[in-house]
């Protein structure tokens, strides 16, 4: 098996209510200068060795990411 890390982030231009709320909260905690907070998912999984990248891509297209509002990137470990 190969360890794969998928990151799913809100598309540029798509509202990220969570990032927006956390940015306001950090400012109120005194981190006045924090900016550009975006929050997404990090998904770690083991897939059969071989075409791990391709497998992960199909997983993203079919389930892990919503192409309308999210972008994904895939990193194969090792």
């Amino acid at each position, binding site marked *: 098996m190969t360890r794969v890390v998928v990151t799913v982030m809100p598309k540029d231009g798509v*509202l*990220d209510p969570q990032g927006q*709320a956390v940015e306001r909260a950090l400012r109120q905690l005194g981190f006045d200068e924090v900016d550009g907070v975006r929050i997404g998912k990090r998904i770690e999984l083991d897939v059969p060795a071989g075409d791990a990248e391709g497998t992960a891509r199909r997983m993203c297209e079919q389930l892990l990411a919503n192409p309308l509002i999210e972008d994904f990137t895939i990193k194969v470990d090792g």
Partner: protein
Amino acid sequence: MSAESTLPLHRQLGLTNDEFAHIPTLIGRAPSDPELVMFSLMWSEHCSYKHSRPLLKRFPVTGKGVLQGPGENAGAVDVGDGWAICLKIESHNHPSAVEPFEGAATGVGGIVRDILAMGSRPIALLNSLRFGELTSRRSRHLFSRAVAGIGHYGNCIGVPTVGGEVMFDARYEDSCLVNAMCVGVVRADRMLRAAAKGVGNPLVLIGNRTGRDGIGGASVLASAELSDDDADKRPSVQVGDPFTERKLIDCCLDLADADLLVSLQDLGAAGLTSAASEMAAKGGLGLDIELDRVPLREADMAPAEILVSESQERMLAVVASADLDEVIARCRRWDLDATAIGVVTDGGRFVARCRGEIVVDLPASALTDDAPTYAVPIAPALAPTPLDLADVPEPADLAAAWRGLLGRPSIASKRWVWQQYDHLVGAGTIRRPGGDAAVVRIPETPRALALTTDSAEMHCELDPRGGGRATVFEAARNLACVGARPLAASDCLNFPNPEKGSTGWRLQQVIEGMSEALEALKVPVVSGNVSLYNESPERMIYPTPVVGMVGLLERAEASVGQAFRTAGDLVLIAGGGAPRLDASAYLGRADGAPAMPDVAAEVALIDFLIGAAEAGLLESAHDVSAGGIAVTLAESALAADIGVSVALTQGRRADEDLFGEGGGRVVVTCRPDAEAALMSRAGGVPLARVGTVGGARVEVQLGATHVHLELGDARVAYESAIPEALGR
């Protein structure tokens, strides 16, 4: 991008050549590009109702207690002691078909802002949903994600989702329906309106920053049939932000309480363009807006984009100059951005400036009042022919057929849906989802509201006028079953393309039938919405007029439930009409000729139910609808976990007697010592005792035929159907 880009801009934006040619006659010159985009959105079906407006005039919209009819963000009626309620139902069908979670969520957000724009506090949400059969993977996805989106938004803003309906049919496979209704309360003398007032008053934009959300959404998503090129429509998906919506509710109600708002309007379809032009046109005044002052989420937005962005969770307010600082300060206290973006002017012009340049200068009314209207073709469809029972196979095992019906997703328990909705928040929900109508307390009064949404879509397909009546009477009957007097209605007319075939005629006939029933009930339509073009190259939806109706209970504690109460109580059937399988859920298809609802009989039945409930004579009441009396009895028994045994008169065939629909019939129960009093009230309403409550079975005797279900078996079929269909 192929043929599209070769078209002239106005055609790409969805304006016809005639509409384009008409613009200069209104504004005395050719429109600038931003102006053209504004016209294309404001004159889209979604914003202008250009194909339905002439037909909507038929609805009864006045009556005692009406404080606001159609034409505002929501309708309003008086409920006594100086309180008014506001109601409106609206569709979000196309966005939900593209992205069900965010589409349904933002649909809830939008209708809540319509209620908030009246200065009223939202106290209840309902939704009416239609999807393809759950055997379809796509429909399972759309259904489960839409429900999740509705729950996510409604739960997070703290408005209880107390009712609604879900129906599955292949006719909705390509065009699902997601209609959301909201009800609010407000002191009648404190109600707000959208009309701009006071030349020189600042215009304040409150809430989320403006991004590229849903640009073109109004025209692209809501006014054309969805087809294979949906992908192109996807970049404009809007993401709901219920946390900001909750702050908007708290903030706007705070500003209204403090008397700091002159007028208030939500930003919905066509964003700032629609909100501002409606405020100006309604007030007979103008607005001068500086686009540079609009807080943006993305720096590089063009004037046209800022003007039509459909970023959610924004409200537009006119305030007195002297109050501006206080208004902004209060918005800050609620952790919301608020910015003065313009002023009210006289002369009725909509002016927008960008970096000192005037980019828009139009008579506001040109965008709203001067929108074109079209007469839809009125081509009657063939009259339906009654079902020939010989064509309907008679089931060998009636009990199995009964169990099967209870296990049909369209009839089975919707617990899986409403358990994901906070239907309690606010501590005012007296009757929870799952009954004929929800009942919620009217805060600070002894009264309560009953709420329901209904549609008789298959009936409307076969006989639109009768279906229109059936839709309204079913809603009114549901309210009467809990003991409430029907007060007002909002409607959402979901139809296919009205320019094709008999759809235009069906639209007209449905409105006619609805209006006849509403007039007889003295229930006005105070708001509503139209969603057309719900079809794909392969499939047209049934004509689906969803009516959201609100009823009043003078004493909250007098409400009646559908659950049986006590073993030994008597079971009676109120109302008449022979059960028929035509267009029934049991038949499962729009076939046959359902009977035309009898207006006088339906009204008499409703009056009887309300009177009996007020007199405290009813232990339970539940109307006969989808699945016939067999399903009605099973539902009342399951709700109470007590059995029942009845003997029914035989008609043409046992399955029709058990599962047939039509006619206004209600199963009521009473204490034995209340039977005489109940009978004496019946007047012209057929009322017959058919059995008693008790035991652990639901049993029916039909002449020599005996059919029964063990409560346990019935419960499994009824409760597990939807979770199993979803593989949960």
